[in-house]
């Protein structure tokens, strides 16, 4: 990201933000509430276009083809009408993987994400942390080169954190390692860098 700026309404939400993430790197973006962390992700997922600056991937303008990022929204955005297993495979389904095959791929990962026994439940029957882990699994299983995790706080509690990080490696496969952009990520096992956004956007008086 080079000198990216976003103005929403009257508020300069992002102003001159530059960030470089290398291959295999794990970057945490820290900042006070309202600093613009989620807005960064909205730029990357194409929900928002930058007003200034540019976003590049491998030196070329970022293509918004839905092939690059796996995105975990801040609110889990689970579909209440789908069972957990079918929520988890949503990304694979969009990629064109047949449902049966996608389910078969997802099922073994439920143990590592602390969701075993809840495959056939609806999201409303899960705890907040379980919902977050289901959303994380839905993200990881897409096996995209870059993962964007907006506050995966389910991993901030101790025991599931371990299981999650193990599950993450399993699901990520033997590749060089995912590139992750994550505000507030707890796992400390990867090459780990913190980018901070110190100021909160202040709307003009």
């Amino acid at each position: 990201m080079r000198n990216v700026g976003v103005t929403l309404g009257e508020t300069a939400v992002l102003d001159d933000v530059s960030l470089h993430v290398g291959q295999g790197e794990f970057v945490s973006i820290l900042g006070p509430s309202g600093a613009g962390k989620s807005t960064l992700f909205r730029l990357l997922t194409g929900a928002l276009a930058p007003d200034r600056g540019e976003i590049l991937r491998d030196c070329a303008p970022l293509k918004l083809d839905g092939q690059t990022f796996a995105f975990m929204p801040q609110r889990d955005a689970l579909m209440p009408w789908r069972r957990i297993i079918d929520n988890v495979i949503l990304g694979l389904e969009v990629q064109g993987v047949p449902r049966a095959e996608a389910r078969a791929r997802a099922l073994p990962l439920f143990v590592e994400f602390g969701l075993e026994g809840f495959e056939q439940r609806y999201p409303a029957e899960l705890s907040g942390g379980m919902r977050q882990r289901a959303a994380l699994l839905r993200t990881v299983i897409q096996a995209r080169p870059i993962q964007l995790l907006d506050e995966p706080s389910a991993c901030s509690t101790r025991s599931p954190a371990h299981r999650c990080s193990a599950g993450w490696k399993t699901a990520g496969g033997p590749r060089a390692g995912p590139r992750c952009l994550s505000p507030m990520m707890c796992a400390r096992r990867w090459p780990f860098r913190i980018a901070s956004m110190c100021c909160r956007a202040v709307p003009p008086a």
Partner: protein
Amino acid sequence: MSKGRPRPAGGRLARGLPALASVVGAVLLWEIYVRLSGISPLVLPAPSRVIEQMGVNRALLWENTLPTLSATLTGFAFSVSIAFALSVALDFLPKLRRALFPIFVVSQTLPLVAIAPLAVLWFGFGLTPKILLVALVTFFPMLVALVDGYESTDPEIETLMRSMGASRWKVFRAARFPSAMPYFFAGLRISITYAVVAAIFSEYVGARAGLGIVILNAKNSFRPDLMLAAVVVSSTLTLVLFGVSALLQRALLRWREAGQTR
């Protein structure tokens, strides 16, 4: 958390009891009033007499319920199919929506009293005018329910799906359409009651058979008891259809009950 949520035995019966008690109470008061005042049955028949007439005329009532039921269901099925097809088109083409919505709103302002005789004049005494009138009355509520339902989709779910590279059509099928289902069923329950009323009214202005015709003939021969008997039958029919759509909703939207402890 277990699958079969324990429900206290007869719990539903107990919940329905106050409603049942108030209905029975009202009917009893009516009966007592008629007996004490000695009012003529040509003006106000007692409920016992209405029930008696239902028994005496059960063949007549049954024969005439079937045409009403078929007009209601055919008209309603027609209206729901068109509303659904159109709602999909409108969801993809907002311009079309702005162009057509005013027409649909105007269609809702047409008084049935004027339209029904015209429909009979144009389409005769057969099923066609009934289907059209039932559709006219139920089409717009169903369309609005669907269009509003699509709009109720959680924007985060749509953002998520687009981040996955989903097409507009895939987003519609996987997110917008399921989001609209609770709205659809709410619309269905209300519209089906309108549908029965519309069917009976269109029979009343011109038909060969049907509950509307029974009511018309009973009125013309000064038989309020038979009129009321037909009214009881039509109300029962409406309640049954309402119940069927509620059951359908429960069967198809089981996720809505998930997570509710009761």
